[in-house]
């Protein structure tokens, strides 16, 4: 009973925060909204019993990448962008209504055609969300793609170091 309530709560927070990221005039506020969004998405993972993924999301994105973002924004001391023109409330309402209508029509159409995915309730997620199950999958079934991604990351890291160097050796 609690899970759907939590899901919609965190989904609403995530959507609000991502809109905030787009609309904030000040880069720091924008970055902060993005952090809230990432934390809300992490909470969504937690409601799906995928604790490991959720925590890693916090650890990697909110804890490391966004700290670097914020560091750079603060280091450059970016000014807030000026408000170019006031957004007309009526146009905004129009867009919101249009999006809602489109969503409703798409939903009805998909349901009519039987194209909606069936829901697999959290039991399977509970079994696959543990670090052990995840690691077993990752290191046996998907060992090759995993290693390839590792290689890709290594190449990207070396590339970043090379670009950051003043003179190419």
């Amino acid at each position, binding site marked *: 009973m609690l899970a759907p309530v939590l899901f919609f709560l965190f989904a609403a927070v995530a959507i609000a925060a991502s809109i905030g990221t787009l609309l904030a005039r000040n880069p720091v506020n924008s970055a902060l909204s993005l952090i809230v969004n990432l934390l809300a998405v992490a909470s969504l993972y937690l409601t799906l019993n995928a604790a490991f993924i959720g925590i890693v999301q*916090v650890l990697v994105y909110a804890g490391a990448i966004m*700290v670097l973002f*914020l*560091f750079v924004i*603060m280091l450059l001391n970016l000014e807030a962008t000026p408000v170019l023109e006031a957004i007309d409330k009526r146009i905004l309402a129009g867009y919101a209504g249009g999006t809602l209508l489109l969503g409703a029509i798409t939903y009805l159409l998909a349901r009519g055609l039987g194209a909606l995915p069936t829901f697999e309730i959290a039991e399977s997620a509970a079994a696959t969300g543990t*670090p052990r199950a995840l690691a077993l999958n990752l290191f046996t079934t998907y060992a090759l793609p995993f290693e390839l991604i590792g290689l890709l990351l290594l190449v990207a890291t070396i590339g970043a170091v090379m670009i950051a160097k003043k003179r190419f050796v």
Partner: protein
Amino acid sequence: MDLPLYWVALIGFAIINFFLVSASVLVYYERKVSGWIQNRPGPNRVGPWGFLQPFADVAKLIFKEDISPTASSPFIHSLAPVLMVTIAMTTAALIPFARGFVIVDTEVSALLVLALTSIAVYGVTLAGWSSNSKFSLLGGLRSSAQMISYELAMGLSVLTVVLITGSLRLVDIVEYQNGPGAWGILGWNVFRAPIAALIFIVTAFAETNRAPFDLPEAEQELVGGYHTEYSGMKFGMFFLAEYVNFFVASFVIVTLFFGGYLLPWEDALLSALPGLKDSVLLGVLQVLSLLLKAAFFAFVFIWVRWTLPRFKYQQLMTLGWKMLLPIALANVVLYALFFTFKALLGWGG
């Protein structure tokens, strides 16, 4: 252990209050210890042996005017100290205080500790930015660079413990130190992985911004660092967060490396006194054992602060990236190889 929700809430309430009170005790203790180290009496005017000094300090902080700088960002300016205290207190929920006595026991609690440590930096960084002052901004920048640099080594030393235990659950990590082949206190992870323990303790100093890693608030260069522009109880919350942070860090150090709540020679003690098993007294003894060990590390935090000078910035970066990180990485690889061969060759069952 499945306690009803209101019990968890009550225990949580008790633990939060315990940490709030412990902060004021630690402030007093730090001032006394620093007095002894510098050969002066320390606080001795307010109450017997100056014991009421922290209460006087808090009363002063509460009644001071709350000043926020003009052109600061008021919401974030108020948010930053709240964030610091909240995150510091949240970590306490993960610590097992005795066998079966832990508020949050998840599959990944060791990772959760790291995640909370890594988002704790936002308090300092945002305080630095929102104050709209160059001293604060420098403090915030230093803090974020420092946290990112030391998080890696910290994560790798925790990974060593996870490799030994084979679980990310803090309760399992504690119990394993009592586990197979453990003799008395030699099962503690500090004896199984001494290098990782040392690295973790050093990085814990860096992550809590305690001297010799207190560059974000270096008084001599930055006035007060990130909390220069804070006054009254908002400053008090930073102060509180600092003490709660390093006390919680002591608890985490003890949990990961020094047997957590385990009593020294617990097995021998239990076989000598079989009536003790599963009794309330054992739980109380375990809480006391954890407290004693954590208090020792809190003392170490204070001891180091008053005996070592602060690092220079490039020394901080050299230590983090060129020494701690490679050593921690090599350590993890060594342990991983050891456990792989152990599994392949079937050593020790």
